[in-house]
Protein backbone atom coordinates (compact mmCIF):
# COMPACT_ATOMS: atom_id res chain seq x y z
CA UNK A 1 0.00 0.00 0.00
CA UNK A 2 1.13 3.55 -0.59
CA UNK A 3 -0.15 7.04 0.05
CA UNK A 4 -1.75 8.86 -2.89
CA UNK A 5 -0.42 12.35 -3.54
CA UNK A 6 -2.93 15.22 -3.32
CA UNK A 7 -0.69 18.13 -4.17
CA UNK A 8 -0.43 18.20 -7.98
CA UNK A 9 0.01 21.89 -8.97
CA UNK A 10 -1.73 21.66 -12.36
CA UNK A 11 -4.88 20.19 -10.82
CA UNK A 12 -4.67 22.87 -8.12
CA UNK A 13 -4.60 25.52 -10.85
CA UNK A 14 -7.68 24.04 -12.51
CA UNK A 15 -9.55 23.95 -9.19
CA UNK A 16 -8.68 27.60 -8.58
CA UNK A 17 -10.18 28.31 -12.01
CA UNK A 18 -13.33 26.42 -11.03
CA UNK A 19 -13.58 28.45 -7.83
CA UNK A 20 -13.16 31.69 -9.80
CA UNK A 21 -15.91 30.63 -12.22
CA UNK A 22 -18.29 29.82 -9.36
CA UNK A 23 -17.41 33.07 -7.61
CA UNK A 24 -18.67 35.04 -10.65
CA UNK A 25 -22.15 33.83 -9.86
CA UNK A 26 -21.92 34.64 -6.16
CA UNK A 27 -21.82 37.66 -3.90
CA UNK A 28 -19.55 37.75 -0.90
CA UNK A 29 -18.72 34.23 0.26
CA UNK A 30 -17.36 33.65 3.77
CA UNK A 31 -16.20 30.06 4.21
CA UNK A 32 -15.10 29.15 7.70
CA UNK A 33 -12.20 26.73 7.94
CA UNK A 34 -12.91 25.29 11.34
CA UNK A 35 -9.69 23.47 12.07
CA UNK A 36 -6.49 25.15 13.18
CA UNK A 37 -4.50 22.70 11.10
CA UNK A 38 -6.43 23.88 8.03
CA UNK A 39 -5.62 27.48 8.99
CA UNK A 40 -1.92 26.64 9.15
CA UNK A 41 -1.96 24.81 5.80
CA UNK A 42 -3.95 27.60 4.09
CA UNK A 43 -1.37 30.07 5.38
CA UNK A 44 1.55 27.93 4.29
CA UNK A 45 0.12 27.63 0.76
CA UNK A 46 -0.67 31.36 0.59
CA UNK A 47 -4.15 30.32 -0.50
CA UNK A 48 -5.99 33.45 0.63
CA UNK A 49 -4.16 35.57 -1.95
CA UNK A 50 -5.00 33.10 -4.75
CA UNK A 51 -8.77 33.10 -4.22
CA UNK A 52 -11.22 35.48 -5.94
CA UNK A 53 -11.76 38.73 -4.04
CA UNK A 54 -15.31 37.81 -3.02
CA UNK A 55 -14.31 34.42 -1.55
CA UNK A 56 -13.00 34.84 1.95
CA UNK A 57 -11.64 32.10 4.18
CA UNK A 58 -12.51 32.82 7.80
CA UNK A 59 -10.61 31.03 10.55
CA UNK A 60 -12.81 29.30 13.10
CA UNK A 61 -12.66 28.07 16.68
CA UNK A 62 -10.87 24.80 15.93
CA UNK A 63 -7.87 25.33 18.16
CA UNK A 64 -8.54 23.29 21.29
CA UNK A 65 -5.90 25.07 23.35
CA UNK A 66 -7.26 28.50 22.38
CA UNK A 67 -10.80 27.71 23.53
CA UNK A 68 -9.76 26.18 26.87
CA UNK A 69 -10.87 28.67 29.50
CA UNK A 70 -8.45 30.96 31.29
CA UNK A 71 -9.91 29.95 34.65
CA UNK A 72 -9.19 26.30 33.83
CA UNK A 73 -5.56 27.12 33.00
CA UNK A 74 -5.18 29.14 36.20
CA UNK A 75 -6.66 26.30 38.24
CA UNK A 76 -4.32 23.76 36.62
CA UNK A 77 -1.29 26.00 37.24
CA UNK A 78 -2.31 26.57 40.86
CA UNK A 79 -2.78 22.92 41.69
CA UNK A 80 0.50 22.08 39.94
CA UNK A 81 2.25 24.15 42.61
CA UNK A 82 0.72 22.12 45.47
CA UNK A 83 2.97 19.69 47.26
CA UNK A 84 2.94 16.14 45.88
CA UNK A 85 0.85 17.08 42.86
CA UNK A 86 1.93 16.54 39.27
CA UNK A 87 0.19 17.89 36.17
CA UNK A 88 0.52 15.86 32.97
CA UNK A 89 -0.43 17.62 29.76
CA UNK A 90 0.03 18.05 26.02
CA UNK A 91 2.85 20.46 25.15
CA UNK A 92 0.52 22.98 23.51
CA UNK A 93 -1.08 23.79 26.85
CA UNK A 94 2.05 24.86 28.70
CA UNK A 95 2.67 28.31 27.26
CA UNK A 96 -0.97 29.41 26.96
CA UNK A 97 -1.67 32.31 29.30
CA UNK A 98 -4.55 31.89 31.71
CA UNK A 99 -5.95 34.98 33.40
CA UNK A 100 -3.41 35.30 36.22
CA UNK A 101 -0.76 32.73 35.35
CA UNK A 102 0.22 29.85 33.07
CA UNK A 103 1.57 26.34 33.44
CA UNK A 104 4.90 27.66 32.16
CA UNK A 105 5.06 30.18 34.98
CA UNK A 106 4.11 27.51 37.53
CA UNK A 107 6.87 25.31 36.14
CA UNK A 108 9.45 28.05 36.53
CA UNK A 109 8.26 28.34 40.13
CA UNK A 110 9.00 24.67 40.72
CA UNK A 111 5.72 22.99 39.84
CA UNK A 112 5.85 19.39 38.64
CA UNK A 113 4.53 19.47 35.08
CA UNK A 114 5.17 16.69 32.58
CA UNK A 115 4.58 17.11 28.85
CA UNK A 116 3.32 13.99 27.08
CA UNK A 117 2.00 13.05 23.66
CA UNK A 118 -0.60 10.55 24.87
CA UNK A 119 -2.78 10.10 27.98
CA UNK A 120 -1.39 6.57 28.25
CA UNK A 121 1.84 8.20 29.41
CA UNK A 122 -0.09 9.81 32.28
CA UNK A 123 -1.17 6.31 33.32
CA UNK A 124 2.48 5.21 33.25
CA UNK A 125 3.61 8.20 35.29
CA UNK A 126 0.92 7.57 37.92
CA UNK A 127 2.02 3.94 38.22
CA UNK A 128 5.67 5.00 38.63
CA UNK A 129 4.95 7.73 41.17
CA UNK A 130 2.44 6.26 43.64
CA UNK A 131 3.21 8.95 46.22
CA UNK A 132 2.11 11.79 43.97
CA UNK A 133 -1.34 12.85 42.83
CA UNK A 134 -1.08 12.79 39.04
CA UNK A 135 -3.66 14.88 37.17
CA UNK A 136 -4.03 14.61 33.40
CA UNK A 137 -5.42 17.67 31.62
CA UNK A 138 -8.05 16.03 29.43
CA UNK A 139 -8.58 18.66 26.74
CA UNK A 140 -9.19 18.71 23.02
CA UNK A 141 -11.91 17.83 20.55
CA UNK A 142 -13.24 14.50 19.30
CA UNK A 143 -9.74 13.50 18.13
CA UNK A 144 -8.34 13.34 21.66
CA UNK A 145 -11.49 12.37 23.61
CA UNK A 146 -11.29 8.62 22.78
CA UNK A 147 -7.73 8.52 24.11
CA UNK A 148 -8.78 10.28 27.33
CA UNK A 149 -11.67 7.84 27.68
CA UNK A 150 -9.30 4.89 27.32
CA UNK A 151 -7.01 6.27 30.00
CA UNK A 152 -9.94 6.86 32.40
CA UNK A 153 -11.11 3.27 31.78
CA UNK A 154 -7.65 1.92 32.55
CA UNK A 155 -7.44 4.01 35.74
CA UNK A 156 -10.75 2.57 36.95
CA UNK A 157 -10.06 -1.01 35.84
CA UNK A 158 -6.68 -1.09 37.50
CA UNK A 159 -7.83 1.05 40.42
CA UNK A 160 -4.96 3.54 40.10
CA UNK A 161 -5.73 5.68 43.15
CA UNK A 162 -3.35 8.57 42.45
CA UNK A 163 -4.51 9.32 38.89
CA UNK A 164 -7.34 11.71 38.03
CA UNK A 165 -8.52 13.78 35.10
CA UNK A 166 -9.23 17.51 34.89
CA UNK A 167 -11.69 17.47 32.01
CA UNK A 168 -12.35 20.24 29.54
CA UNK A 169 -13.14 18.27 26.38
CA UNK A 170 -15.19 20.01 23.73
CA UNK A 171 -17.18 18.83 20.72
CA UNK A 172 -17.14 20.69 17.43
CA UNK A 173 -20.61 20.44 15.78
CA UNK A 174 -22.63 22.27 18.51
CA UNK A 175 -20.12 25.14 18.42
CA UNK A 176 -20.50 25.48 14.64
CA UNK A 177 -24.29 25.58 14.92
CA UNK A 178 -23.93 28.32 17.56
CA UNK A 179 -21.70 30.37 15.23
CA UNK A 180 -24.17 29.97 12.34
CA UNK A 181 -26.93 31.29 14.58
CA UNK A 182 -24.89 34.50 15.07
CA UNK A 183 -26.07 36.29 11.91
CA UNK A 184 -23.50 39.05 12.34
CA UNK A 185 -20.78 36.54 11.41
CA UNK A 186 -22.50 35.90 8.04
CA UNK A 187 -20.89 32.51 7.47
CA UNK A 188 -21.72 31.05 4.03
CA UNK A 189 -20.32 27.55 4.45
CA UNK A 190 -17.79 25.35 6.20
CA UNK A 191 -14.64 23.37 5.56
CA UNK A 192 -15.18 20.74 8.24
CA UNK A 193 -12.27 19.32 10.25
CA UNK A 194 -11.04 16.09 8.65
CA UNK A 195 -9.74 14.33 11.70
CA UNK A 196 -12.56 15.22 14.07
CA UNK A 197 -14.78 13.82 11.31
CA UNK A 198 -12.69 10.62 11.17
CA UNK A 199 -14.10 9.91 14.64
CA UNK A 200 -17.66 11.27 14.46
CA UNK A 201 -18.51 10.78 10.76
CA UNK A 202 -20.98 12.90 8.79
CA UNK A 203 -24.22 12.79 10.76
CA UNK A 204 -23.37 15.17 13.64
CA UNK A 205 -23.01 17.98 11.06
CA UNK A 206 -26.48 17.52 9.56
CA UNK A 207 -27.89 20.40 11.67
CA UNK A 208 -25.60 22.74 9.69
CA UNK A 209 -27.26 21.69 6.43
CA UNK A 210 -30.65 22.10 8.12
CA UNK A 211 -29.56 25.63 9.03
CA UNK A 212 -29.01 26.14 5.29
CA UNK A 213 -25.22 25.96 5.14
CA UNK A 214 -23.14 23.85 2.76
CA UNK A 215 -20.37 22.00 4.57
CA UNK A 216 -17.58 19.80 3.23
CA UNK A 217 -15.44 17.39 5.26
CA UNK A 218 -11.98 18.29 4.04
CA UNK A 219 -8.51 16.78 4.25
CA UNK A 220 -5.26 18.66 4.72
CA UNK A 221 -3.36 18.46 1.44
CA UNK A 222 -3.55 21.28 -1.14
CA UNK A 223 -6.02 19.51 -3.44
CA UNK A 224 -8.16 18.52 -0.46
CA UNK A 225 -8.56 22.12 0.63
CA UNK A 226 -9.15 23.41 -2.90
CA UNK A 227 -11.75 20.74 -3.65
CA UNK A 228 -13.48 21.55 -0.34
CA UNK A 229 -13.73 25.22 -1.34
CA UNK A 230 -14.90 24.28 -4.85
CA UNK A 231 -17.65 22.04 -3.47
CA UNK A 232 -18.87 24.69 -1.01
CA UNK A 233 -18.97 27.30 -3.82
CA UNK A 234 -20.79 24.90 -6.17
CA UNK A 235 -23.43 24.22 -3.52
CA UNK A 236 -23.85 27.96 -2.97
CA UNK A 237 -24.30 28.50 -6.73
CA UNK A 238 -26.94 25.78 -6.84
CA UNK A 239 -28.51 26.97 -3.57
CA UNK A 240 -27.99 23.55 -2.02
CA UNK A 241 -26.99 22.84 1.55
CA UNK A 242 -25.60 19.39 2.29
CA UNK A 243 -22.81 17.79 4.24
CA UNK A 244 -20.38 16.33 1.69
CA UNK A 245 -17.29 14.25 2.35
CA UNK A 246 -14.21 15.09 0.28
CA UNK A 247 -11.89 13.09 2.55
CA UNK A 248 -13.21 9.57 2.09
CA UNK A 249 -9.78 7.97 2.27
CA UNK A 250 -9.88 8.72 5.99
CA UNK A 251 -13.46 9.65 6.91
CA UNK A 252 -16.16 6.99 6.77
CA UNK A 253 -19.80 8.05 6.69
CA UNK A 254 -20.34 6.60 10.18
CA UNK A 255 -16.93 7.74 11.48
CA UNK A 256 -15.32 5.34 13.94
CA UNK A 257 -18.23 3.88 15.96
CA UNK A 258 -15.88 2.03 18.30
CA UNK A 259 -14.11 5.27 19.21
CA UNK A 260 -17.43 7.07 19.75
CA UNK A 261 -18.71 4.22 21.96
CA UNK A 262 -15.47 4.37 23.95
CA UNK A 263 -16.04 8.08 24.57
CA UNK A 264 -19.64 7.69 25.72
CA UNK A 265 -18.94 4.75 28.01
CA UNK A 266 -16.89 7.21 30.06
CA UNK A 267 -18.31 10.67 29.31
CA UNK A 268 -21.74 12.31 29.16
CA UNK A 269 -22.61 15.28 26.98
CA UNK A 270 -22.33 18.49 28.99
CA UNK A 271 -22.48 22.24 28.44
CA UNK A 272 -19.09 23.83 27.94
CA UNK A 273 -17.57 27.30 28.18
CA UNK A 274 -15.50 28.15 25.11
CA UNK A 275 -12.88 30.74 25.85
CA UNK A 276 -13.77 34.00 24.13
CA UNK A 277 -17.05 32.61 22.78
CA UNK A 278 -19.11 31.70 25.84
CA UNK A 279 -21.24 28.85 27.10
CA UNK A 280 -22.43 26.55 24.31
CA UNK A 281 -25.06 24.01 25.36
CA UNK A 282 -24.15 20.38 24.75
CA UNK A 283 -20.68 21.19 23.40
CA UNK A 284 -18.59 19.49 26.06
CA UNK A 285 -17.95 16.21 27.85
CA UNK A 286 -18.11 15.43 31.56
CA UNK A 287 -17.17 12.18 33.29
CA UNK A 288 -20.15 9.89 33.89
CA UNK A 289 -21.35 9.24 37.43
CA UNK A 290 -19.49 5.92 37.72
CA UNK A 291 -16.17 7.59 36.90
CA UNK A 292 -16.61 10.60 39.20
CA UNK A 293 -13.92 9.39 41.60
CA UNK A 294 -11.44 10.00 38.77
CA UNK A 295 -12.67 13.56 38.21
CA UNK A 296 -9.95 15.86 39.55
CA UNK A 297 -12.36 18.78 39.97
CA UNK A 298 -14.52 16.68 42.32
CA UNK A 299 -11.65 14.90 44.06
CA UNK A 300 -9.77 18.10 44.86
CA UNK A 301 -12.57 20.65 44.82
CA UNK A 302 -11.11 22.53 41.84
CA UNK A 303 -13.63 25.14 40.69
CA UNK A 304 -15.50 24.07 37.56
CA UNK A 305 -14.50 25.36 34.15
CA UNK A 306 -14.71 29.13 33.76
CA UNK A 307 -16.92 31.53 31.88
CA UNK A 308 -16.74 33.47 28.67
CA UNK A 309 -15.22 36.90 29.21
CA UNK A 310 -11.92 35.43 30.16
CA UNK A 311 -9.39 36.68 27.65
CA UNK A 312 -6.40 38.75 28.73
CA UNK A 313 -7.09 42.50 28.72
CA UNK A 314 -7.11 44.15 25.25
CA UNK A 315 -6.82 40.72 23.57
CA UNK A 316 -9.19 40.16 20.63
CA UNK A 317 -8.89 36.36 20.58
CA UNK A 318 -12.62 36.01 21.23
CA UNK A 319 -13.55 37.81 18.04
CA UNK A 320 -10.80 35.97 16.15
CA UNK A 321 -12.12 32.57 17.29
CA UNK A 322 -15.63 33.48 16.14
CA UNK A 323 -14.38 34.63 12.74
CA UNK A 324 -15.50 38.20 13.47
CA UNK A 325 -12.02 39.70 13.30
CA UNK A 326 -9.08 38.81 11.11
CA UNK A 327 -6.03 38.15 13.29
CA UNK A 328 -3.99 40.92 11.65
CA UNK A 329 -6.78 43.42 12.34
CA UNK A 330 -6.17 43.13 16.10
CA UNK A 331 -4.31 46.22 17.36
CA UNK A 332 -1.91 44.02 19.34
CA UNK A 333 -1.06 41.74 16.38
CA UNK A 334 2.65 41.66 15.63
CA UNK A 335 3.39 44.56 17.96
CA UNK A 336 2.77 43.77 21.61
CA UNK A 337 1.55 40.24 20.76
CA UNK A 338 3.94 37.90 18.94
CA UNK A 339 4.67 34.15 19.17
CA UNK A 340 7.74 35.05 21.28
CA UNK A 341 5.67 37.21 23.67
CA UNK A 342 2.05 36.15 23.20
CA UNK A 343 -0.78 38.01 24.90
CA UNK A 344 -3.61 35.67 23.96
CA UNK A 345 -3.97 31.94 23.29
CA UNK A 346 -4.45 32.32 19.50
CA UNK A 347 -0.85 33.56 19.18
CA UNK A 348 0.60 30.74 21.30
CA UNK A 349 -0.78 27.53 19.97
CA UNK A 350 0.66 25.85 16.90
CA UNK A 351 -2.95 25.69 15.71
CA UNK A 352 -3.89 29.27 16.61
CA UNK A 353 -5.10 31.61 13.85
CA UNK A 354 -2.94 34.51 15.03
CA UNK A 355 0.15 32.28 15.05
CA UNK A 356 -0.70 31.13 11.49
CA UNK A 357 -1.13 34.71 10.24
CA UNK A 358 2.08 35.79 11.97
CA UNK A 359 4.05 32.92 10.49
CA UNK A 360 2.73 33.07 6.92
CA UNK A 361 1.17 36.53 6.55
CA UNK A 362 -2.40 37.12 5.47
Amino acid at each position, binding site marked *: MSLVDFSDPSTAGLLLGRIAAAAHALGTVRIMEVCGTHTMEIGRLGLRSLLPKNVELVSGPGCPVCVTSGAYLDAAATIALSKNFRIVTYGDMVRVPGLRTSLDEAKSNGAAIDVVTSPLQAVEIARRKPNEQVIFLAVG*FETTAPASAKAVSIAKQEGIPNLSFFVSHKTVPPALSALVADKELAISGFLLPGH*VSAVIGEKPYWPLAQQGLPAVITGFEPLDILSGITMVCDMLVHKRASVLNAYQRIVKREGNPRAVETVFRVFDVADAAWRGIGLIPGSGLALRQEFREYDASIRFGIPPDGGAADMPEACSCGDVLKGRLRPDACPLFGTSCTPEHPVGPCMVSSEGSCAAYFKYGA
Partner: protein
Amino acid sequence: MCLAVPAKVISIEGSTATVDMMGNTTSADISLLENVTIGDYVLVHVGFAIQKYDEAEAKITLDLLQELAHTVDPHEPG
Protein backbone atom coordinates in the same frame (compact mmCIF):
# COMPACT_ATOMS: atom_id res chain seq x y z
CA MET B 1 -3.60 18.57 18.69
CA CYS B 2 -5.65 17.54 15.67
CA LEU B 3 -2.70 17.22 13.34
CA ALA B 4 -1.91 13.68 12.28
CA VAL B 5 -0.28 11.88 9.42
CA PRO B 6 -0.93 8.31 8.32
CA ALA B 7 1.59 5.93 9.83
CA LYS B 8 2.48 2.52 8.41
CA VAL B 9 1.98 -0.52 10.62
CA ILE B 10 5.23 -2.50 10.89
CA SER B 11 4.31 -5.05 13.54
CA ILE B 12 1.48 -5.81 15.96
CA GLU B 13 1.58 -7.19 19.48
CA GLY B 14 -1.79 -7.45 21.19
CA SER B 15 -3.46 -4.04 20.98
CA THR B 16 -0.21 -2.21 20.32
CA ALA B 17 1.29 -1.65 16.87
CA THR B 18 4.75 -0.46 15.99
CA VAL B 19 4.34 2.13 13.25
CA ASP B 20 6.55 4.09 10.91
CA MET B 21 5.52 7.74 11.05
CA MET B 22 7.41 9.75 8.43
CA GLY B 23 10.58 7.76 9.07
CA ASN B 24 10.22 7.66 12.87
CA THR B 25 9.35 4.40 14.56
CA THR B 26 6.83 4.74 17.37
CA SER B 27 4.04 2.71 18.95
CA ALA B 28 0.30 3.20 18.66
CA ASP B 29 -2.64 1.66 20.49
CA ILE B 30 -4.89 0.03 17.86
CA SER B 31 -7.76 -1.03 20.15
CA LEU B 32 -10.10 1.61 18.68
CA LEU B 33 -9.93 -0.08 15.25
CA GLU B 34 -10.96 -3.45 13.89
CA ASN B 35 -8.84 -5.69 11.68
CA VAL B 36 -5.61 -3.75 11.54
CA THR B 37 -2.96 -5.69 9.63
CA ILE B 38 0.72 -5.21 8.94
CA GLY B 39 1.24 -2.84 6.00
CA ASP B 40 -1.92 -0.80 6.72
CA TYR B 41 -1.67 2.94 7.09
CA VAL B 42 -3.45 4.26 10.17
CA LEU B 43 -4.12 7.78 11.41
CA VAL B 44 -2.56 8.20 14.86
CA HIS B 45 -3.77 10.79 17.35
CA VAL B 46 -2.26 11.15 20.83
CA GLY B 47 -1.05 7.56 20.82
CA PHE B 48 -4.18 5.94 19.37
CA ALA B 49 -4.92 4.86 15.81
CA ILE B 50 -8.34 6.41 15.19
CA GLN B 51 -8.93 5.49 11.56
CA LYS B 52 -7.52 3.41 8.73
CA TYR B 53 -6.32 4.97 5.50
CA ASP B 54 -8.20 3.60 2.50
CA GLU B 55 -5.99 3.57 -0.59
CA ALA B 56 -8.82 2.56 -2.95
CA GLU B 57 -10.92 5.52 -1.75
CA ALA B 58 -7.92 7.79 -2.17
CA LYS B 59 -7.64 6.83 -5.84
CA ILE B 60 -11.40 7.29 -6.38
CA THR B 61 -11.26 10.72 -4.72
CA LEU B 62 -8.31 11.77 -6.87
CA ASP B 63 -10.19 10.69 -10.03
CA LEU B 64 -13.33 12.57 -8.96
CA LEU B 65 -11.25 15.57 -8.12
CA GLN B 66 -9.61 15.60 -11.57
CA GLU B 67 -13.08 15.38 -13.06
CA LEU B 68 -14.28 18.26 -10.88
CA ALA B 69 -11.26 20.33 -11.90
CA HIS B 70 -11.91 19.77 -15.62
CA THR B 71 -15.67 20.32 -15.56
CA VAL B 72 -17.15 23.73 -16.03
CA ASP B 73 -20.30 23.97 -13.97
CA PRO B 74 -23.10 24.49 -16.58
CA HIS B 75 -25.04 26.65 -14.11
CA GLU B 76 -22.30 29.18 -13.90
CA PRO B 77 -22.08 32.01 -16.40
CA GLY B 78 -19.39 31.52 -18.99
